């Protein structure tokens, strides 16, 4: 049943067994798992069936760290949540997202990655990955390359060395979640879904150990209460810390924040172009079809990518990493321009300024200093004009083209306590503080990427595949490193309350009935897109809650 919370009487109390806060990937998975159970479930969704501007404005926030997406457009507040932002064309007029489990090494405590380590290993988690794949409809569960190669159309590269490996990414559609699971949930007799219901406070007992009830508000003005035996926050890695930090009646620093961890360790997957792979032979393009584009194998869209083998990561103390090969065709001359950009001297800059002012019909500022620069560097001016003519001629007459690959990377970000979410002094329409995101990269993030490109280049050359020309050259975080809307880590999981906000069962340390679902519990994020792990963790948490309720 779907209920518009705006129609509820003021201060009404909704009694339920389990309350899920957030109707996104995790919330939908949880609710789906609870269909047909003997206990009652209340799903609170901040938005409606479609996103709207007023609700989206609740996401508004400041970015004060490394450049990041505008926060109110980086997520969608409506039933479906982030699944509505899966935008990859996966064929048959469907949109979807990349899906892959984390690697075994991602779950380990690695001495070179501070704060790394999940409370459980991948082997224990694999059954949930299998279930998650059934939920996302990307069965069969295997990610072994041999199961997804097409002979001879799309085979893996026969790399002989022991450094690089091919990995398979599957693509899951948004339709199962939005078109199938949401209607199933709304039809379920034991589940009530409330739209336009925003949790603004978590009320606990004085010891701040048990949640008594949730204060829920609609932008339209009315407020009500939800009282539940168990509460699961599934509102994403930005909204969950905001709710916890603002629920500070009995814990001044915020609920679950007794060790100053809520909102810290914000992580993303680092998206950037590592470099260009210039193949030694152009026929390599016939051998790399697996990596070039999406293939549909037994109805599942897949694409191959390249990553480093586990032992290479260990030996070189690297963060996990994957590269996508994007084919490009360009002129030889453009390639040279790309790698040997011409830096103008003062005299040439002055000449350009005069040229620009003349054609725009504007008056030149300080013409005397420009003329002085030109006369002092006349040789530079002549050389530049000669080169410009020569380059123009080459571009016009020599149209020889080269096919190459851009290496688009997605790499792990090391957990960093200073990369964090805090509360801003600005308030939203519900009177809640907006958030302030300070996304910070660590030196290891960049050092690891640089070292990785060196290994890849060496291996490409050794295998005779070609040569990698680097784009990432210094150790400062380049501005062009961006995220992928993958918010992770802000209520991290650890068995020790000093090191994590939630325990191994996703229950907030010190709280008896408050749980967190979603990517905010990831202690580390690997390179794989988070969706599949979110669904697997939600299925695992659903089992835990079902067991307790029995």
């Amino acid at each position, binding site marked *: 049943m779907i209920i518009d919370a705006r129609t509820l009487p003021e201060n009404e109390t909704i009694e339920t067994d389990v309350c899920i806060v957030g109707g996104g990937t995790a919330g939908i998975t949880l609710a789906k798992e609870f269909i047909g159970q003997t206990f009652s479930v209340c799903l609170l969704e901040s938005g409606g069936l*479609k*996103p*709207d*501007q007023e609700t*989206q*404005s609740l996401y*508004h926030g400041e970015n004060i760290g490394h450049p990041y997406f*505008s926060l*109110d*457009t980086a997520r*969608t507040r*409506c039933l479906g949540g982030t699944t*509505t*932002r899966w*935008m*990859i*064309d996966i064929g048959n*007029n469907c*949109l979807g997202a990349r899906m892959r489990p984390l690697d075994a090494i991602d779950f380990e405590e690695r001495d070179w990655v501070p704060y790394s380590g999940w409370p459980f290993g991948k082997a224990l988690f694999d059954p949930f990955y299998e279930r998650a794949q059934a939920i996302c409809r990307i069965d069969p569960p295997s990610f072994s390359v041999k199961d997804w190669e097409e002979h001879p159309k799309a085979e893996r590269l026969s790399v002989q060395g022991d450094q690089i490996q091919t990995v398979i990414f599957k693509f899951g559609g948004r339709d199962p979640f939005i078109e199938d699971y949401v209607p199933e949930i709304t039809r379920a007799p034991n589940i009530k879904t409330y739209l336009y219901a925003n949790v603004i406070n978590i009320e606990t007992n004085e010891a701040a150990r048990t949640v008594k009830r949730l204060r829920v508000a609609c932008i339209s003005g009315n407020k009500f209460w939800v009282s539940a035996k168990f509460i699961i926050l599934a509102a994403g890695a930005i909204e969950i810390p905001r709710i916890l930090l603002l629920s500070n009646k009995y814990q001044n620093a915020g609920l679950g924040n007794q060790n100053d961890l809520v909102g810290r360790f914000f992580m993303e997957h680092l998206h950037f172009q590592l470099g260009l792979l210039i193949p030694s032979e152009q026929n390599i*393009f016939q051998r790399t079809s697996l990596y*070039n*584009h999406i293939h549909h194998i037994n109805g599942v869209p897949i694409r191959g990518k390249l990553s480093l083998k586990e032992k290479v990561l260990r030996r070189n103390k690297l963060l996990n990493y994957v590269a996508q090969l*994007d*084919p*490009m*065709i*360009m*002129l030889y001359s*453009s390639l040279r321009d790309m790698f040997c950009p011409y830096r103008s001297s003062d005299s040439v800059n002055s000449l350009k300024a005069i040229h620009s002012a003349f054609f725009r019909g504007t008056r030149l500022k300080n013409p005397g200093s420009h003329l002085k620069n030109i006369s002092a560097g006349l040789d530079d001016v002549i050389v530049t004009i000669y080169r410009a003519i020569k380059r123009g001629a080459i571009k016009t007459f020599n149209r020889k*083209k080269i*096919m190459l690959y*851009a290496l688009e990377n997605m790499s792990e970000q090391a957990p960093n306590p200073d990369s964090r979410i805090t509360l801003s002094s*600005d308030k*939203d*329409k519900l009177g809640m503080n*907006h958030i302030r995101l300070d996304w910070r990269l660590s030196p290891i993030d960049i050092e690891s990427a640089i070292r990785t490109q060196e290994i890849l280049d060496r291996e490409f050359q050794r295998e005779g595949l070609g040569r990698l020309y680097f784009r990432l050259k210094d150790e400062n975080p380049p501005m062009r490193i961006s995220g992928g809307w993958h918010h992770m880590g802000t209520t991290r999981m650890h068995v020790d309350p000093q090191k994590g906000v939630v325990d191994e069962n996703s229950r907030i340390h010190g709280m008896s009935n408050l749980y967190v679902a979603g990517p905010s519990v990831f202690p580390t994020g690997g390179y794989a897109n988070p969706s599949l792990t979110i669904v697997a963790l939600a299925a695992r948490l659903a089992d835990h809650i079902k067991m307790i309720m029995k």
Partner: protein
Amino acid sequence: MTHWAMIIDLTKCVACETCIEVCRQFNKPPPGPSWRKSIVHEMKNNPSEKQLFLTMSCMHCETPTCLEVCPTGATYRRSDGIVDIDLNLCLGCGACVVACPYQARSISKSDIISNEIDVKSKDRIGICTKCNFCLQHIDAGLEKGLKPGIDPEATPRCVRFCLADALYFGDLEDPESEVSRLIQDNKVVCMQEALGTNPSVYYILP
């Protein structure tokens, strides 16, 4: 007679840019400016609460200035109101790019093609390209007896996948169509009306 038109409800757009992304993925334009763009304008009085998201593309004008200046006749207007470019006739002279008051046209000068599998983008380098209301889907849909704007398969991809239901498409000449109803029921505006280009894209203002 049919007249295809688009309504953009600015009270609903949440700037998710799905329209831009699906346009890029399904139409595969050549490298350079997108066929669709979105401008986010923060209201100065209250930046935290109020933003205007303006999404735009080719306006498919009734009297297109781009058509008048095209020296080869590559730009043409179909009887259903869609303004398109004949790729075989376009010289890439750029006259239409300058003439378009909506900056909806561009010429890719790039010699970089992002995907060698995609022949479409390769053929469009050096000539003018722009939004064509996904006319291939409209025409194919009409042949199957589908109704553009109602049947997803025959509807422009940006409209079909709009998350917030902010984009509408349909026949302006059909008084029963949703676009006709929206124009009747709301205060709609077109961009740069004073120029007399009579665009087929209408905006519902917040």
